[in-house]
């Protein structure tokens, strides 16, 4: 009777504090937070105590120590006198290198195969199908082994190198290219190249504006190509051909001179590219098939030919479907590059592992690995999200 009365009077119902949903909500959150904090605190304390008991040093001071080991493949100056920190940077750059080259190649091959799968030509269609099914169903490690042990290690020894055009050689130690030795005035050529790029960008902007205003079109592509090739070429002639080559030549053991692309890098790069390309091909196919046929028919009806239809109508819409899963493939490729350790390519995991072994700093090294791979993945994802947002349907 009393309760009925209070409700009838319209005042807030008196609820015991324990049963107040708001109080409860806050209490739960505080509890979870305290529990989590206590757990993390315990983990850290326990680890520190155990490390101290086992007399294992900790902290990141070891990064300044002399590494003492050599790395075969390095993009920056590195010797056994360099620090552990630098060894890790070398590894990181190697990871980055294989990831970037792999992503570019995988995208190109993937798009070609994906379009090939849609071809009406029976042979092209079937070849692409076989490619996709083979590479998609083999673990990436086996693909790496296939390239390393199956293809590159059966090449002849340095003495019987296969000579290729332009003074390059192929043997079981890798792919040797002549080295470009730039002389005086090379800076001018680089400057001309940058200028050409900037200029091409302005031409493109001007042409777009003009087309919007007058409807007249301008051959932007050919102008840009002309600029980007022509200007540096002009600078090259003006400075008097400041370029010479260093050709690889046989010494006691190996080919010396020139640029060596080691088989470890080649096999990892090829394996990751071809493996990931199979997935990208399927994504591209799905993207193109995902665009309604009515769109093509409508654009044909408007008088656009097949080329512009594909370029202006189908692909922009297909890209919206393609980009999000493509991002995952890029992340996968980057992470799969850690399989390098199986064939001795000195990536971050390999150099980090050696550092770990020598210094015993397992927790620190693993933390560095985690942070670097997380950072790389977040950066890739961030870039692709930005690109996706640009490509997304803008409603007007």
């Amino acid at each position, binding site marked *: 009777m009393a309760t009925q009365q209070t409700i009838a009077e319209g005042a807030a119902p008196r609820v015991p504090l324990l049963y107040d949903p708001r109080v409860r909500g806050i209490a739960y959150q505080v*509890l979870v937070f305290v529990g989590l904090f206590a757990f993390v605190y315990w983990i850290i304390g326990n680890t520190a105590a155990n490390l101290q008991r086992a*007399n294992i040093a900790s902290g990141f001071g070891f990064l300044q120590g002399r590494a003492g080991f050599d*790395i075969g493949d390095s993009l920056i100056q590195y010797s056994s006198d360099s620090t552990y920190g630098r060894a890790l940077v070398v590894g990181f750059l190697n990871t980055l290198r294989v990831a970037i080259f792999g992503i570019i190649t995988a995208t190109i091959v993937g798009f070609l195969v994906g379009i090939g799968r849609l071809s009406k030509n029976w042979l092209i269609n079937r070849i692409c199908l076989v490619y996709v099914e083979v590479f998609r169903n083999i673990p990436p490690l086996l693909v790496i082994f296939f390239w390393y042990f199956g293809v590159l290690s059966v090449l002849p020894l340095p003495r019987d190198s296969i000579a290729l055009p332009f003074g390059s050689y192929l043997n079981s130690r890798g792919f040797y290219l002549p080295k470009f030795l730039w002389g005086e005035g090379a800076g001018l050529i680089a400057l001309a190249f940058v200028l050409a790029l900037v200029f091409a960008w302005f031409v493109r902007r001007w042409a777009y504006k003009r087309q919007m205003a007058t409807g007249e079109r301008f051959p932007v592509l050919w102008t840009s190509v002309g600029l980007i090739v022509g200007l540096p070429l002009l600078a090259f002639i003006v400075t008097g051909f400041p370029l010479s080559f260093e050709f690889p030549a046989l010494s006691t*053991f190996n080919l010396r001179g020139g640029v060596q692309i080691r088989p470890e890098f080649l096999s990892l790069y090829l394996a990751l590219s071809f493996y990931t390309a199979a997935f990208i091909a399927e994504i591209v196919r799905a993207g193109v098939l995902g665009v309604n046929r009515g769109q093509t028919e409508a654009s044909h009806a408007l008088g656009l030919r097949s080329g512009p239809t594909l370029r202006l109508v189908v692909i922009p819409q297909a890209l919206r479907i393609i980009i999000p899963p493509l991002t995952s493939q890029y992340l996968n490729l980057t992470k799969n590059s850690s399989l390098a350790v199986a064939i001795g390519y000195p990536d971050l995991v390999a150099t980090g592992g050696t550092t770990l072994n020598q210094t015993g700093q397992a927790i620190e090294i693993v933390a560095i690995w985690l942070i670097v791979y997380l950072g790389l993945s977040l950066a890739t994802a961030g870039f692709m999200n930005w690109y996706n947002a640009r490509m997304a349907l803008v409603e007007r």
Partner: protein
Amino acid sequence: MKTILKALLGSAVVALLAAPASAATLDDVKAKGHIQCGVSTGLAGFSAPDNAGNWTGLDVDFCRAVAAAVFDDPNAVQFTPLSAKERFTALQSGEVDLLSRNTTWTISRDTALGLNFAGVTYYDGQGFMINAKKLQGINSALQLSGAAVCVQAGTTTELNLADYFKANNMEYNPVVFEKLEEVNTAYDSGRCDVYTTDQSGLYAIRLTLSSPDDHIVLPEIISKEPLGPVVRHGDDQWFDIVKWVYYALLNAEELGVSQANIEESMNSDKPDVRRLLGTEDGTKLGSDLGLTNDWAARVIKHVGNYGEMFERNVGADSPLKISRGVNALWTKGGLQYGMPIR
């Protein structure tokens, strides 16, 4: 609500108070009923599985010796094959109780890595192997400038290699793999010109190559590689046990106690033999170690003395045919010296 609250608070308190696990390896081992022993992934003569899948080798026999001392059963061991890179983490984290994996004793491993080396079961040195058929005219390591060198990651070998080439102003091209088998395959397929590791290892690996006779080991030895069993820092009792099993193996050889004559030796009246085998009246040598008094007798009965272990695995009775050299007893001009059991 109250129960949830209590449970949560309780677990937090328990978590905060929980102390690190105790460090008595001997108790843990006895509770498990076996010793977890870290060995290599396959190095003939030291630790490799035979045709029947049983682990054999000098390092393996040392594990069996410790098992015999603790359990009177040389088979109370489980082996964990570890790569050079994995081995220390496995020992530090407690995954293995004993690491017997041709591991070089160095100061940084002894200190910063928190390990204890219990002795030197094999005195070794680093050498180079080349294919003499393909590289004719090379008979010294000083002619190796510009070569591609195969080496295993995370070893002292890798570091000595860098030091040696730097000291002699030579260049080289390191080809580094994590697993021994990968290095072997790469060398055999011609990916590199030179293979470098401990000399005993080179002899063992040469046997597994496709044409062993084509390969020669160059005369230079560029480093000291004392290889021995390793335990974790912080458990003195376990350290003592492993150390004294090693000394018992040496003392047994010195005193002429072998697997063949162990039964007669048990009745020997020589005082030092009686002390070693625990037949002395009222002896406490074994029980002070945390074992039974016949601990050394068990070791000899099951795996023999050091000399027998050596000859069986890497010496005259094995395909490796390595001579005792510096690994002979000190009484015979070598470096192996067992501390007195008294």
